């Protein structure tokens, strides 16, 4: 069960981020974008505004998961090629077009690591890492906690890591995470809470 404290901490952070972030867009903007998508469905040349709008963030998303500029470029090309090929099947469901692109990108990254059998890269900024430490650990020797946290992250299954990565390392609002993963916002919150609980247990066990 959620404790009230946990909810308020998480929600407070979320609210703060929502205010400072530009990652969610209004219904009107989504509707306008849907018209651009419909145009691209008629003629692939009209895909250009969508490509120009999202290239940077999709490239960055892939780069954070591969850690290699050339591989990121190759996968990113593949993502947009797939997007333009499959744009005809896209249906507007009240979520931003970017959520669909992120899903395609996520699949392509996963495919790349399946094929190469390399360990998937997880990019962490020190300050976001500290946020996660705040969330799951009590007071104590920071370095020990840090090492324990890294150990716990190594034990997460891929779907759990995706959630932690988006929520903490990329500081995405729950709403956006829910849109990318095709789940409800409350489900995203519950899942995140459960993963944090799991990490606490792993860290406790390892300490």
């Amino acid at each position, binding site marked *: 069960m959620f404790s009230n404290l946990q909810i308020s901490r998480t929600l407070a952070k979320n609210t703060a981020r929502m205010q400072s972030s530009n990652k969610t867009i209004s219904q009107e903007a989504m509707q306008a974008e849907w018209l651009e998508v419909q145009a691209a469905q008629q003629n*692939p*040349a009209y*895909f*250009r505004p969508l*490509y*120009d709008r999202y*290239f*940077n963030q999709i*490239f*960055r998303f892939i*780069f954070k998961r591969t*850690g290699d*500029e*050339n*591989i990121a*470029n*190759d996968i*990113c*090309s*593949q993502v*947009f*090629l*797939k997007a*333009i*090929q*499959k744009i005809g099947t896209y249906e507007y*469901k009240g979520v931003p077009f970017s959520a669909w692109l992120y899903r395609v990108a996520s699949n392509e990254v*996963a*495919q790349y690591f*399946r*094929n190469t*059998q*390399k*360990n*998937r*890269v*997880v*990019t*962490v*900024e*020190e300050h976001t*890492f500290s946020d996660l430490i705040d969330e799951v650990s009590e007071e104590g020797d920071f370095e020990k906690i840090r090492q324990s946290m*890294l150990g716990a*992250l*190594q*034990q*997460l*299954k*891929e*779907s759990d*890591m995706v959630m932690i990565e988006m929520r903490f390392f990329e500081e995405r609002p729950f709403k956006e995470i829910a849109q990318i993963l095709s*789940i*409800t*916002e*409350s*489900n995203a919150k*519950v*899942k995140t809470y459960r993963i944090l609980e799991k990490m606490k247990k792993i860290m406790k066990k390892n300490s």
Partner: protein
Amino acid sequence: MKKDLYNIKINPPQLSKEEIAKYQDFDALLAKFKETPLPKEVKSERKPRVIWLRYVATAAAVFLLAAMVNGLLQREKGMDEKQFFANQPFINPPLNDLKPTFVSGKINANEGGIYENNNGSKLIIPAAAFRNPDGKLVEGDVDIKYREMHDYVDFFLSGIPMTYDSAGVKYVLESAGMVEIYAEQNGQQLKMDPGKEIKVELISYINMPRLNMSPKYNIYKLSASSRNWEYQNVDNIQIIDELDNEGFENEELRNLRTNYQTYLSKTSILEVNEIAVLEATIEIPTKPVRPVRANKDHFSFDLDISDNASPVVKNLGEKYQNIIWHISPNSPEINTNAFKLEWESMDLKPIDNGPDFELTLINGDRKEYILVTPALSGNEFSKAMSLYDTSMEIYRNKLKDRELTLEKNRNSIIEKYYSLKEASKKEFVRTIENWRIKNQNDPSLNQIVRKKIINRFVANEFGIWNCDRPIHPDDLEIEGNFELDKNAEVTDEIAYLVNKNRNTIVRIYAKDGAKINFDQKSDNLMWMVTKDNQIAIFRQEEFKKINQKKGGNHTFRLKVEPDALKSEEDVRKVLQFKEM
């Protein structure tokens, strides 16, 4: 020490907007799109392009040459099995018209309920368990969509992969049954409310050696995102008719079974008795009697209540001044002229806890018995009703307390006897296991029997849930080549290999040199699907003829069955499915 799953990079250098922008080229993308309209073709060409771009970027000619050589080698070698299946749909039904069908039933979302399948399998669904795609709690009727898959024919037709990848090691799944569950409302697919669980009781069958009393299976959920099965829990299996005659031919075992059965039935009798004693010892509160309003249409009369009347009657007389008495509808018939007579004495006593009293009119040796009911009118009736309402409230509370006490004590009795039965079962199973070890050379013990079971588990999400256990592929691994008679052509290059004894099915990328694992002692079957929706098959008797050791090579000549596949029955017939 566990192997790291991720390459975690802390504070790595980030790319600037300008650095990323240099890769941005929509015209090149559009040109590429026009060249390669089909996604599959694009996918297969991706790898050489990764290499090409990387090496152009570094402008190292020597590496470019190496890449070209590498590319040529790749093409020469072709795709491996992993790459092949990575490019296939994850769930890939080979005969689209013959996929195992869903059945459906309605459940009220507010109340929850039990969905029961024709074969007795059950889904126990809690109240308020569904949310619509917007996250809103769903109310009203919901359609539960449900299908079960039990054997290699079901698994084949469903196209659901039955292998499990654990840290790069491929296992085969030996299944004890699989279900797929969804819910819909007005054609819209629903999600489960986080934290809610559906209890599943899946009736199925497993193949197992005789006298194996405790088969061990797990619960896995299929994840389309990771293209793998994800472990959830241990499968709680109950074998139905575990004590039937099969396997208990030996006298020593029969005696053990008799003792065990006797203990179980004695324990059950003790349990029933103890619950009966409990119910008898917790006092049942007396239900208050509802006052009767005087009715002028009923025959009624007055009675003088004497000092030596029973306490209940006296109490009634003291409380109410104007009681009149009706003849109860339950009374034996009496001539109303009797009330015109003067009787020497009378006796009035209450009957049980009902509204009626027994009135005895006495005159010498003559006695008349009738049942009468006290009736009130006006304020006295209102006063009696008010008292009645208060007494009923007290009565209901006492009844509730009794039920709670009863339930608590009853549960502890049930738990006590359940523990005793479980301990006894554990001991019985242990003894049988020891007997099996002692008699392991007895060939009858290796005989595979098919047992009906109930798999019990909880599902916290919709999707595909499998009761199974990962096992290593069969020991004998050879390289296979494939030939189809009648110049038949296949829809894709997938061969299906079944070990009937273990209820396993493996998909193989059927190119020359493919690795084929099988157990020559088992009942094996391999087939492919032709473009004409026929099955080309390599049967058990052919497997027996393979004379190869590990690492050997064999050409599998698959014979095309002429029968057209129009129904699941046709498939079962061609694939020689029979219940063991």
